[in-house]
């Protein structure tokens, strides 16, 4: 018969029970906050270092100068510069017209920068890489549902849960991350963007009569609370259309590599 020291185990379970009660009554919050604040900085540094090593290794192993690709990129860059210049002038005109017509002022958004400290746990095994933990929380004005972008302003996900000093972010490829979005085609098609199996993003409920093409940019539509309009999510890589269905789906590829994030910004209204 296996001898189990029931006294030790009972004592241990009692301590666990007390810890759980103290946590749920928030009496352990000062201790937890202290631990998180001490640990966050070194953890973020180590995590960022590892990700930069990974990036460096991947870059070295995939260096192949392809002159044709380089030419295409140069052409694309030039046309983007021209388009950007036009958009800047439209923006200026838009602001002037809004002032003349006394439109209500747009809500101003602040950026709260946060470092990634780890990857989260997820219910579906293949979605574990689609959640990250950041070192900012409710104390910094972050709440559930806010948009998270990378250093270039490209959308990476949404805040799913918050603690006092940390938050969990569902990346775009996570099934919990749903965003109201617009396809930048000739008709500005609206739809809902959702992560698919931790691998890709799909936009569903697009009416069959809307023309969507590969390469169309997808941006936030601004129809959701606390999520501004115009932030880029990705581009359409595949359109799934069937003649006997009411809707068509678009598969979207994110513009940023979601596996190598070390620094993100949260848009706080």
């Amino acid at each position, binding site marked *: 018969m*296996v*001898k*189990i*020291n029931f006294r*030790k*185990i009972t004592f*241990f*379970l009692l*301590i*666990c029970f007390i*810890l*759980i009660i103290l*946590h*749920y009554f928030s009496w352990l919050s000062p201790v*937890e906050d202290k*631990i*998180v604040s001490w*640990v966050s900085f*070194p*953890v*973020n540094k*180590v*995590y960022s270092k*590892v*990700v930069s090593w*990974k990036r460096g290794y991947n870059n070295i192993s995939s260096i192949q100068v392809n002159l044709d690709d380089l030419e295409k990129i140069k052409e694309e860059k030039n046309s983007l510069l021209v388009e950007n210049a036009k958009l800047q002038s439209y923006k200026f005109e838009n602001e002037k017209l809004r002032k003349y017509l006394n439109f209500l002022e747009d809500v101003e958004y602040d950026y709260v920068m946060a470092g990634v*400290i*780890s*990857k*989260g*746990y997820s*219910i*579906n*095994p*293949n979605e574990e*890489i689609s959640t990250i*933990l950041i070192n900012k929380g409710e104390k910094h004005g972050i709440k559930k549902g806010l948009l998270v972008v990378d250093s270039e302003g490209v959308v990476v996900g949404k805040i*799913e*849960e918050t*603690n006092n000093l*940390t938050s*969990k972010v569902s990346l775009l490829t996570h099934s919990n991350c749903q965003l109201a979005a617009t396809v930048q085609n000739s008709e500005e098609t609206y739809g809902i963007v959702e992560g698919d199996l931790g691998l890709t993003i799909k936009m569903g409920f697009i009416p069959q009569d809307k023309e969507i093409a590969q390469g169309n940019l997808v941006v936030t539509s601004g129809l959701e609370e606390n999520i501004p309009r115009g932030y880029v999510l990705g581009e359409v890589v595949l359109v799934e259309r069937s003649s006997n269905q009411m809707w068509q789906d678009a598969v979207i590829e994110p513009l940023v590599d979601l*596996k190598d994030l070390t620094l993100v910004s949260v848009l706080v209204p």
Partner: protein
Amino acid sequence: MTTKLRINRIYLRILFNFILITLVFLIHLSFIRAFDSWFGYLNLSLIFLIFVLEINGLTWSLGWILGLGFFFDIFYFLPFGYFLLTFFIVVLISHILLVRVFTNRSLYSYLGLVFVGTIVYEVVLNLLIYLLTFYSSSRIFFLFIKDFWNELGQELIVNWLATFIFFYIFSFFNKRFNAVFIKK
């Protein structure tokens, strides 16, 4: 040895274990979880927990559960107590196996306990997570998801490799482990 000296030694041992628990947790949270591929599946905390159980017995491993479980519960967004409970069940089952089945401190017993411990850890934790969302969503039970078994297999292999390496490093400096091959 005087009582005072003995108490001082116990305090020093507790402090040393606390520092080690913190280091193991930090390495697990930041260094290992940053990797996407095979190395990212390494469960360093579990390996150390079972190691402490083998070397120092149940009491010290319960202390490690309190430390590691507390850290995991405050950082990960799961209900508080999930990791405490999971680690406790793993250690309890490992303790029973260690006393009843793997009765010596050889590499085989360590590997066997790590094998069983890894499976128990993943099943218990995923079951607790599944129960959390049982009523709110219609998710497939995790045991029927192919990716769960793929990742469990990878985790078992990586944990075993780490156990090998760790066993030989420790055996080099300390003779508390038995030989690899059991002598008749």
